[in-house]
């Protein structure tokens, strides 16, 4: 096994993350239960002939990936791996609505063509003329983490650099359906923030985060990506032991972690899984959250990794991301843990480099 470095990052999210003037401490907590992405000027990134058919997810993916590639100074990556829990949801809804509303008549292909889960990865490849390996993982809240697992296998096998990322878009009908089953917070506005919301469900949002991984360190390296593991369906009681086993496999003790980044999303039903760790083995470790800034989407954990990259590079944990007040001198080992609704658990370990 070699080493893997994060040498370029790009992020489109509910925050103004494409604006290089802004940094983590500038971002404000989302105040509604459904928040669209803060849109960059897409025309700066995508030729008009391509942009006209692109839904939000595709545009976000193309922008985030081109930012990451540019930072890493990579023109054409040697593999593209994309995670997307729900795929191109807007085009799926659009085509489905057309089928039902028009009773299978007068249908046009564009929405269908764009609805396949791999459209984002495909459009990135098409835009770059990249004929390399190209795969899309669509496994709910571990879509992004499985993509990283594939990416590091690729780096071990032969590839020089891998573009890996996550993207998910908001789609109205799906949000309404998810409200029915309590996955989206009922209250439209959250004045006191998600931590004090004391309600079921999460704040739904969207975003795209892409990263360039290479097996060499460069001047621009943000961090070393040490390891990643996913568990589809472990019991709540097993989380602590899985976390410790993951660290042990990487020759680390819990006390050697300088910051832990948790996928806390303000859902009273499932945040307890994090709380138990926060109150026990992670008690003396600086704790960070980010979904109050990014909102929840299947690949929101990629925003968590983006946050980690920024924190490691700047060696600062901004106040607006802190869950506790434990001080830290230098940020070396950073652990990310995410789960969604008690399923799709993932641990990612990053290290300063």
């Amino acid at each position: 096994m070699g080493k893997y470095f994060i040498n370029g990052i790009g992020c489109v999210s509910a925050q103004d993350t494409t604006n290089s003037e802004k940094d983590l401490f500038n971002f404000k907590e989302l105040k509604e239960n459904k928040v669209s992405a803060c849109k960059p000027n897409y025309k700066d990134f995508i030729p008009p002939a391509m942009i006209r058919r692109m839904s939000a997810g595709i545009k976000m993916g193309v922008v985030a990936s081109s930012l990451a590639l540019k930072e890493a100074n990579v023109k054409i990556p040697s593999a593209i791996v994309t995670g997307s829990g729900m795929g191109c949801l807007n085009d799926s809804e659009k085509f489905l609505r057309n089928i039902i509303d028009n009773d299978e008549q007068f249908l046009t292909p564009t929405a269908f063509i764009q609805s396949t889960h791999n459209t984002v990865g495909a459009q990135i490849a098409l835009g770059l003329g990249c004929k390399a390996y190209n795969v899309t993982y669509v496994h709910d809240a571990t879509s992004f983490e499985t993509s990283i697992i594939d990416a590091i296998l690729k780096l071990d096998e032969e590839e020089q650099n891998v573009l890996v990322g996550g993207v998910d878009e908001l789609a109205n009908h799906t949000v309404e359906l998810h409200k029915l089953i309590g996955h989206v917070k009922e209250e439209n506005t959250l004045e006191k923030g998600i931590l004090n919301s004391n309600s079921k469900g999460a704040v739904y949002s969207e975003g795209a985060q892409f990263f360039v991984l290479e097996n060499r360190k460069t001047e621009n390296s943000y961090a070393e990506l040490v390891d990643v593991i996913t568990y589809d369906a472990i019991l709540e009681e097993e989380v602590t032991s899985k976390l410790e086993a993951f660290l042990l496999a990487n020759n680390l003790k819990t006390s050697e972690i300088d910051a832990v980044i948790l996928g806390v999303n303000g859902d009273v039903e499932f945040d307890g899984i994090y709380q138990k760790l926060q109150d026990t083995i992670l008690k003396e470790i600086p704790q960070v959250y980010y979904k109050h800034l990014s909102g929840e989407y299947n690949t929101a954990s990629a925003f968590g990794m983006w946050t980690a990259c920024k924190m490691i590079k700047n060696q600062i944990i901004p106040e607006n991301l802190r869950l506790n007040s434990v001080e830290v001198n230098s940020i070396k080992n950073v652990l990310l843990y995410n789960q969604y609704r008690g399923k799709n658990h993932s641990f990612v370990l990053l290290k300063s480099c």
Partner: protein
Amino acid sequence: MSNIEDLKLELKKNIIEVLNLEDISLEDFGDNDSLFGDGIGLDSIDALELIVMLDKDYGIRLSDPKEGKKIFESVEVMAAYIAEHRTK
């Protein structure tokens, strides 16, 4: 729609809207501009959209998609074809 000029305008508006041609204004859209290739720049997916437009808006059903190639040469040609074959 009585007049061929109105039909051409209607077609241009619909093509711009249905195909999301944000960058093309009605003023720039010439009657004889080639719709595919170097002109307006449409492609094979757009051709399928136009086939459905003919059916939905004018009641014209093309049995062979290849027929579309000739009909969709320009707005001028399209309008003439529609004027002759429309059933609604």
